[in-house]
């Protein structure tokens, strides 16, 4: 019984995405999945992170092709818009499903 639970937890942990393990990156992906497109300054305001930390985490997600960045101008000011890609959305869903499984196994 305990061995089966252990096996279940291990298989669920396999589904967890290491890239989405830090809470900031998970929050960024959840935000973009829900609100479609957000600017760097809005993300900074919501997450209360420093420019450097936020930028570095966004970059990691961008390199993994989880996010797409588009630079435009709003009121003549440059704005970077971030959007979740189909790949990012799929990875987020898989990660959240795995998290739910782990929580379910622990609760049982």
């Amino acid at each position: 019984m305990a061995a089966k639970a252990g096996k279940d937890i291990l298989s669920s942990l396999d589904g967890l995405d290491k890239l989405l393990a830090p809470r900031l990156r998970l929050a960024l992906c959840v935000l973009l999945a829900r609100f479609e497109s957000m600017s760097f300054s809005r993300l900074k305001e919501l997450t209360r992170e420093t420019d450097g930390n936020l930028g570095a985490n966004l970059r990691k997600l961008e390199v993994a092709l989880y996010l797409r960045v588009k630079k435009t101008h709003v009121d003549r000011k440059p704005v970077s818009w971030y959007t979740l890609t189909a790949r990012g959305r799929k990875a987020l869903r898989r990660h959240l499903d795995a998290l739910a499984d782990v929580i379910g196994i622990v609760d049982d």
Partner: protein
Amino acid sequence: MSNAERDLAYVQEVVKGAESAPSGPRAIYIIWAVIYFTGFSLFDWNHRYAGMFWLIAGPIGGVASFWLGRRSALRAGAASRRMERRHMLHWIGMGAAIFMALPLLWLDVMSSTALIKVILLIMAIGMFTAGIYLVRPYLWVGIALAVCYLAVMTVSALPWMVVGALSGGAMLLAAFLDER
């Protein structure tokens, strides 16, 4: 509290912060408060002018609201085409229902006074459902319009002026109820 729980609480707090942003600039509510007050009050004086006012001010108000909403979203740094589409479908749907009711007047199925009441009811339903699915404070505008629908049948002196004041006032109240 475990690390996982702390992380999920953080994600929840961040998303909650994004959701509590105002749904649009106050200017949109003010524009519609003016249109409601003027448009409805005119029915007490001249149905023809009132009808013309709505035919012109309605679409202009709609386009102005769309433009102001989009500009505000871009400035706030959160743009959603999906949400924009949902808003457009809802308001165009309500506008289409109103236009589809107009032949009832041209075909002499009902009088202009009865038709305006039907349109008021369509607007009440439209605002109420917008309050449920799109912008919460519109729920109260929908309820106010439903009260107006009942009031117009019971108030004898200047009933449309009462409707204009009630609906315009509800729209202004909605501007302050929108979370800021």
